[in-house]
């Protein structure tokens, strides 16, 4: 499938600071999300993943700016849109957002039904009754009782608020939903249910999704393709199966091995030493070089170019040693022996 809904091409995003040493939050980022695909963006805090989400809907802070590169939505360049153009053409109608802290993103002094009416007023020509009816239908979709549409947000528990937010995100039938850590604040059982709802939307609503998270297991389970970010650079992108089976960027490899897997409690976890660099000034080096067990002088001499991984479609790693990585990693890490999963059933 080569029908991208959202494309990032060599995007740089900077935050200006008073002293003039700008923060280069995102550097030379390229990836694309296909129509009807769920795309996972993973990385640790401060790696630039939320900045990317903000840039897509024109929501960067006042000192933030896309300084070069193109962001295309359905083929049209949107990175230079004005506030008005974003409002008319993009926000809610085409791209909606499930924000990180749902508890804070509903208006606390407004009934949910009124919040829907307000949204309908600005973006549609629905009447008030139609607007409320539509919310009622959506409450059923996300598993909330429709009798609760006239409640205030504080009457809802965390998981219910998260579902209400999803209902609002679907309200104008967008083509792309950006979910920024949609379940981080929730307990495991609730997280699993919300993710299950989000998964169900794919076919029923024909949407694409950009799922931003630090939890690589959520991406591996629920997404079709993914990108791994480190220190403002995209490290690796490809389908989840390709990235899982044949990771070629050292960070992607170590991250996978650092993640606890409940099936194998005896497995030694990989440790990634150090922390990502401060992104002040020009980023003309690999930001992972200082933490990388396989770094070479050339890693610090220039930002790495994308290397296509042979045999896979759309699988790229931004590492100068991508070709050798398979052997290097095999020497460094304990092989994933034929461990037996200790979980009974469900296999």
């Amino acid at each position: 499938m080569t029908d991208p809904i959202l494309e990032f091409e060599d995007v740089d995003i900077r935050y200006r600071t008073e002293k003039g040493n700008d923060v280069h939050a995102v550097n030379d980022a390229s990836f694309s999300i296909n129509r009807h695909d769920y795309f996972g963006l993973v990385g640790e805090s401060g790696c630039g993943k939320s900045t990317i989400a903000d840039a897509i809907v024109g929501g960067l802070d006042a000192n933030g700016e896309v300084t070069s590169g193109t962001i295309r939505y359905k083929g049209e360049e949107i990175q230079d849109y004005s506030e008005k153009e974003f409002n008319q053409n993009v926000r809610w109608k085409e791209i909606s957002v499930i924000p990180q802290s749902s508890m804070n993103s509903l208006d606390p002094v407004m009934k949910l039904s009124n919040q829907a009416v307000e949204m309908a007023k600005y973006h549609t020509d629905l009447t008030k009754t139609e607007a409320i009816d539509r919310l009622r239908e959506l409450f059923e979709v996300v598993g909330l009782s429709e009798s609760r549409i006239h409640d205030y947000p504080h009457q809802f528990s965390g998981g219910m608020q998260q579902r209400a937010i999803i209902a609002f995100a679907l309200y104008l039938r967008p083509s792309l939903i950006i979910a920024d850590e949609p379940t981080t604040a929730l307990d495991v059982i609730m997280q699993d249910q919300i993710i299950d709802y989000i998964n169900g939307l794919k076919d029923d609503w024909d949407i694409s999704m950009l799922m931003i998270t630090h939890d690589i297991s959520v991406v591996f389970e629920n997404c079709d393709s993914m990108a791994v970010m480190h220190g403002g650079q995209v490290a690796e992108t490809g389908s989840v199966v390709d990235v899982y089976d044949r990771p070629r960027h050292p960070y992607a490899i170590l991250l996978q091995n650092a993640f606890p897997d409940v099936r194998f409690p005896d497995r030694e976890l990989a440790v990634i030493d150090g922390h990502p660099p401060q992104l002040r000034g020009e980023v003309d080096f690999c930001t992972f070089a200082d933490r990388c067990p396989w770094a070479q002088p050339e890693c610090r001499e220039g930002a790495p170019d994308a290397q296509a991984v042979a045999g896979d479609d759309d699988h790229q790693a931004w590492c100068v040693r991508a070709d050798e990585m398979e052997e290097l990693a095999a020497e460094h890490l304990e092989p994933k022996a034929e461990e037996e999963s200790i979980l009974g059933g469900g296999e």
Partner: protein
Amino acid sequence: MSATDPVLELESVDKHFQTTSSFVESVKERIFGEGPKLVRAVDDLDMTLEQNQVQGVIGESGCGKTTLLRTVMGLYDPTDGDIRFQGKSTSEFGKADWKEFRRKVQIVFQDPFNSLDPKFSVRRTIAEPLEIHDIDYERSDIEEMLEKVGLTPASQYIQQFPNQLSGGEKQRVAIARALITDPEVILADEPSSMLDVSTQASILNLLNDLTSEFGVSMIYISHDLSTVSYVCDEINVMYLGRIVEKAETRELLSDPKHPYTKALIQSIPIPDPHHKRERATIGGEPGDPIDMPEGCRFKTRCPERMDVCDRKPRDVDPDGDGERTVACHLYYDHEATAGQADEPAGEHTPETPT
């Protein structure tokens, strides 16, 4: 104390909170003869921590994990029940006993960003407990401890302030501060949950080495079963103030008995796109801790609900080998054990105040 005695024992510990401190409300309750409304955050809880053992406690937010930790620490007085440290009940502790207890039982908090004093250097942070307990120390002792928790070279870290450290480094300092007084027990409250995955792994590995290297025991509290399984020998599953299942880690994961444990395990995402996981079928949220259902507290979400669930389940040993317990009616024959009948439903509801 012999070498095989447990370090810490909790016996039927309760910690209840009143929901109102309003005078008018209390008078009303008296007049109408109702008991005060209670949040039974910890209810009839038993736990034994052996030497060198790591006991995990998992459960959803609001299940009473943190209350349990604070009660063990002595920050809350237990409403009922007995906590014994090295064989002596904390209710009989005098001032000197408490001081000794506070030296031997140390906490590592969830949030390293707030649990270190921002104006204390690493040296002062780690020296503080030693000074409080009048323990002589040299700078080299502190450096040695820093090296042990992986902050090398120690000379580089010793003069730094928390704002110069990353999250993982801060948590290592917090662990060093806990270990410096040579404690018997570490209480760890989700020590890795605020950290990024790459640092989380190193903290988990460090905690894993602690028990063997320093001979400490640990109670490790978390909501994340996948990290708990890396650290703990035994896991206690807590639901609305009660422990519903307790077993050795591998046994719990491979053969969970309680429907709640099963649901928890089924809800953990697996970092493998080839793995197809069966999702849990239970409802999403725990009930209200104030108006809790009588009998089994999980019955409102339980897929295996039976009539008998209106009675409080006993802890039973499903395999009969004395190594695990589960509090669920599914696992015992009610007629065969009729002599030791279940407690009637009303017994653990609040009594009227005396």
